[in-house]
């Protein structure tokens, strides 16, 4: 599903964020991505959805080499991936419903289908009653859950989550993690960047560990 081959990433600022990163995720696999602040976790995820391009090495998503992908093919690629961003990336001038509906509307699903899918996604993250609210009126954790609902609403074959439980209490974190596990059991490939070592220990899953941009044994 997702393959990194000897990937090296240096930002324009000269900052080296990744070096010689190689790994491969099979369909339906569930992995944790850990590492200290600034190790390159978010960078790795940005490379996977073509937000950044690798300086050297290949990134392959669903068989496509992202370094050779023309710009106009990128939207199509991104529709195959659900991403929970570290900073939510919600739209504050749309309701919770409209935020979650965004991926479906972009893909052009009919309104009735949009409605039922959005409701299903919101109920999975425990926000059924906040459908009509505005994101500003939500607590930090609620915003984070809206971001999670948006990432899964279009049932993408690949799910990337960057610190999805950073603002959640332990109990809710556990619930969200089991949600991700369910997805993985349905065949979705899931990669979760996290600092929450308690959770990592609880869940039996492969763990990729980054240290200063290099993949090392945890």
């Amino acid at each position, binding site marked *: 599903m997702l393959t990194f081959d000897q990937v090296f990433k240096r930002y324009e600022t000269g900052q080296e964020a990744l070096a010689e990163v190689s790994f491969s995720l099979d369909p339906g696999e569930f992995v944790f991505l850990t590492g200290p602040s600034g190790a390159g976790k978010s960078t790795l995820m940005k490379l996977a959805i073509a937000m950044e391009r690798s300086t050297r090495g290949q990134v392959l998503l669903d068989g496509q080499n992202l370094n050779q992908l023309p710009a106009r093919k990128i939207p199509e690629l991104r529709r195959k991936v659900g991403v929970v961003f570290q900073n939510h990336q919600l739209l504050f001038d749309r309701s919770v419903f409209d935020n979650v509906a965004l991926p479906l509307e972009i893909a052009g699903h009919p309104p009735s289908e949009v409605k039922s899918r959005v409701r299903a996604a919101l109920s999975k993250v425990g926000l059924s009653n906040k459908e009509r609210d505005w994101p500003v009126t939500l607590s930090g954790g609620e915003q984070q859950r809206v971001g999670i609902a948006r990432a899964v609403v279009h049932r993408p074959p690949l799910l990337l989550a960057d610190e999805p439980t950073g603002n959640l209490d332990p109990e809710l974190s556990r619930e969200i993690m089991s949600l991700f596990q369910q997805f993985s059991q*349905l065949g979705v490939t899931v990669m979760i960047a996290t600092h929450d070592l308690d959770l990592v220990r609880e869940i039996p899953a492969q763990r990729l560990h980054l240290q200063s941009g290099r993949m090392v044994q945890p």
Partner: protein
Amino acid sequence: MSERRVTGGATQRLLSRRDRLRAWARHHRQLFGSTLSALLRDWMGLMTTWLVIGIALSLPVLMLIGLRQIGETDHRQVIEPAISVYLSSPSGSAVTQGLISSLRQMPEIRQVTLISEAEALAEFSERSGFFDVLNAFSENPLPAVLEVRSVSTEGATIRLLTQKIGALEGIDSISFDAAWRQRLSSVLLIIERITLALGVLFLCGVVLIIGNTLRLTIENRRHEIEVIKLVGGTDAFVQRPFVYRGFWLGMGGGLMAWIMIQSSLIYLSVPVETLARSYRSDFALEALGFQESLVLLALGAGLGIVGSMVSVRRHLVKIQPN
């Protein structure tokens, strides 16, 4: 109607071509209204933009209307070179009749008008303002005049024609009022220059203003654009609302221009007609008709779309999520 594709075990419903076309039409339909109501939410800014565009559109249009009206009413009479032929014989005489008919046979001449001695006196006193003086003469000292209009308006040809006429019988003298023509054409030259310069300037201005307004909107919605791109929105999808916004901005500007033009024409019509009457001209300002109004609105809308085309793609491409 829809296929299901299995990628690595997960099911993601893909849309058929027909579904996608429907979605495309739905998006357009929805944007038509939603962009207008989004614009109206910031009604003060919208009004300002509409006013600015309206002014920029109405000024050159008003000047064009002025020029066109002059052209339709007085222009031809006024600018067309008239040759005044002063007669040595009275207007009723056989010599004069012969002269008139031989002039009428010349192919270079379009029109011959006889102004009798009495008419000449009336016009004379009228133009000069010295009525009282002319009353001092016991008899009319003025000769009859033929006003000859040539087919050509070209100076050299007319001069040749003047010589040709001069050779005929029954003529005292000939004058061709070049100085007066020159004055008028320099006035028209000024007006035309201003209209042209302002017209080009202002139409470019409208495109620029609309492009710039949209650029600011894009700047304001940068985050929204980034997020839409992040979740798989195409450039066309992102661009579409701005095309509609451009359309509304231009359309509303056209409407403002229409209001301003019609009310200026009404506001100005009284002094202009007073003036025209004092010159005994039937010059009058006519308001815009239905078709012209439509053209004005279409011009506005068109400039709006051009403005959005010019600016939006360029700025959208620069916005990449990070």
